[in-house]
């Protein structure tokens, strides 16, 4: 082999290796995305009719009674549909971020129905990502919905969303440990719990609770209030006070006893693998939210989505769900059924909250201003949690 050709071979090798390395790097770093979207008022109306075939439903983990006698299995039996029920939503924005490029091109990723929190449902509708609902196809829903939920400030006249379950955001504590002394947001930031408390990645849950702690008016959070709260969170995050920001995973850290308390959702008891935990409404005030069933644009088998909505609004079906998930049910007539079936749940204030519990709570707010200004706030919060 001559020296010259050896040199070229070496060079070629070098470039092949470099190309291979670049390819690996590309696979590691490439994500995808697209753009676009137009208003919701021209969104198509989801078609009704007799459902057949397959249907895919996305929901949050632990948000329905599972098993062979669970609601999904019963729905399959009653409707003859083949249901693919997936629990792939852990955080509103992350789920939306994953789906957005598909929705922008009128594709729902095969899903006929999914459940997101009210403020996101509205945002998606405004972007034209949701189909409008035909009330004639939702008879059972409107026969049984709690009167107070018949209308929604985020969705007047229920054009695009049907409540799934509601709840309160507050503090889960382990009552057998030092966390038992935690009753307020202020307590969470006590240095003696350093590295032993967790907050939520959901900005609209975490930041409003901090703003209320700082004395801001929940009816009118200003831009300055948001900024002040995020600045406070940055300080507490940098000091190591906050162990992690989480979605539903805070329940794992509570189960393992890695933390003494965490911000969390009132109905998550079924996800926490220990008995000595308690949900508390922070003394400074709490958040309320309602998660909504929506039908995305391009959804296949929308008739099956309607059928599912109607099915879970049957009081006896809803009683099973409420009994398992322990969130606030949107269906009237569930309490009398549970009085007989499971009196403990029927008298659980987190499932049927009395006005005294709801009074200090306010709905998850959006930051003030234009979408771009809201995005700026989101960015600041993300910078804190990915510190």
């Amino acid at each position, binding site marked *: 082999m001559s020296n010259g050709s050896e040199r070229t071979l070496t060079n070629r090798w070098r470039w092949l290796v470099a190309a291979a390395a670049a390819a690996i790097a590309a696979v590691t770093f490439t994500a995808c995305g697209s753009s676009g979207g137009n208003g919701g008022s021209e969104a198509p109306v989801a078609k009704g009719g007799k459902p057949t075939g397959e249907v895919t439903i996305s929901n949050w983990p632990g948000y329905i009674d599972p098993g062979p006698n669970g609601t999904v299995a019963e729905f399959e039996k009653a409707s003859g549909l083949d249901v693919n029920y997936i629990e792939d939503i852990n955080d509103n924005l992350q789920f939306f971020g994953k789906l957005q490029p598909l929705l922008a091109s009128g594709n729902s990723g095969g899903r006929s129905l999914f459940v997101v929190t009210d403020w996101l449902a509205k945002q998606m509708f405004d*972007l034209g990502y949701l189909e409008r609902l035909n009330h004639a196809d939702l008879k059972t829903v409107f026969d049984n919905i709690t009167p107070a939920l018949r209308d929604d400030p985020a969705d007047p006249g229920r054009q695009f969303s049907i409540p799934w379950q509601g709840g309160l955001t507050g503090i889960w504590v382990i009552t057998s440990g030092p966390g038992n002394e935690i009753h307020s947001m202020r307590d969470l930031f006590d240095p003696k719990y350093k590295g032993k408390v967790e907050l939520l990645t959901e900005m609209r849950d975490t930041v409003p609770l901090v703003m209320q702690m700082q004395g801001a008016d929940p009816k009118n959070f200003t831009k300055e209030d948001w900024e002040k709260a995020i600045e406070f969170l940055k300080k507490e995050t940098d000091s190591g006070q906050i162990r992690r920001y989480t979605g539903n995973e805070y329940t794992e850290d509570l189960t393992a006893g890695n933390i003494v308390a965490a911000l969390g959702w009132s109905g998550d008891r079924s996800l926490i693998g220990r008995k000595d935990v308690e949900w508390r409404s922070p003394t400074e005030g709490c958040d309320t939210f309602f998660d909504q069933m929506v039908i995305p644009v391009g959804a296949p088998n929308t008739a099956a989505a309607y059928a599912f909505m109607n099915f879970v609004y049957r009081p006896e079906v809803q009683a099973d769900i409420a009994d398992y998930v322990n969130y606030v049910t949107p269906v009237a007539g569930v309490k009398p059924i549970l009085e007989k079936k499971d009196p403990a749940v029927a008298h659980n204030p987190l499932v049927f909250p009395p006005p005294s519990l709801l009074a200090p709570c306010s709905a998850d707010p959006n930051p003030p201003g234009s979408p771009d200004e809201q995005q700026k706030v989101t960015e600041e919060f993300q910078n804190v949690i990915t510190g």
Partner: protein
Amino acid sequence: MTIRRRLIPYWLLAPGALWLLVFFVIPMGFMAEQALQSGSLFTGGFHFTWQWSNFPDSLSGNNEQIVRSFYYAGTATVLALLISYPLAYAIAQQSGRWRLLLLFAVIAPFFTTYLIRTIAWKTILYDSGPVVGVFKTLHLIPQDGRLLATSTAVIAGLTYNFLPFMILPIYASIERLDMRLIEAAKDLYASSTQAFLRVTLPMTAPGIVAGVLLTFIPAFGDYVNATILGGTHQAMIGNKIQSLFLVERDYPEAAALSFLMMAVILVMVLVYLRLAGTEAFMGEEEEARA
């Protein structure tokens, strides 16, 4: 030589080239286009405007995560190398059946998905668990210390998850090593250390170089270990890109940042190959035989 015969190597390259075109060049084109867009999702979407400022913008405020990614991936690579070399050497010394069994043991965890393996570490390392207990007893961490949600856990996770990518190439090069050369070195009065440094190490260098690349590059861009095993101050650049794409929905900046990180990796690889010497990649064994 006929023209047709000369074309044969190119035909052999075709499947690979097609793969690169479809899964690398074209996506890169899309990403380059996206990196130069401006606008926002809620006000009419993104549009291509030669927005070069996305590149410097994407770097601002992310220095910490970039430095951290180098530190974590670098440490994990060094640890993986220190674990892999003796292990691969030991495996290569075994006879047939043992060798197969040990190799299988290296690959076996891969039958479970990456995510599950990483989540399993949460159960192993939980705060009141035996591992943390032993660490506390040995005073390796303070009494109120922890392993989860720390840099240690993330680096350990990265090392564990990418270890086979280091072991296998090193094993392949050690296995090919001609033991007679070491005997010859010893005949020529080399000590064991000298024989290792002058014969074994240079001849297995291709495996080391390949292993280091295969470990460092994916570890650098990883975000799973930092998400699952890290806390508030373990976010790597992969987590930042994920947040930009999925939560902040600033696609152009996310694409620009991905591009810059890729360029950084590419430059580093070229410098590394130059320093390590490309012969290391070709294998001196081949040259020695020629």
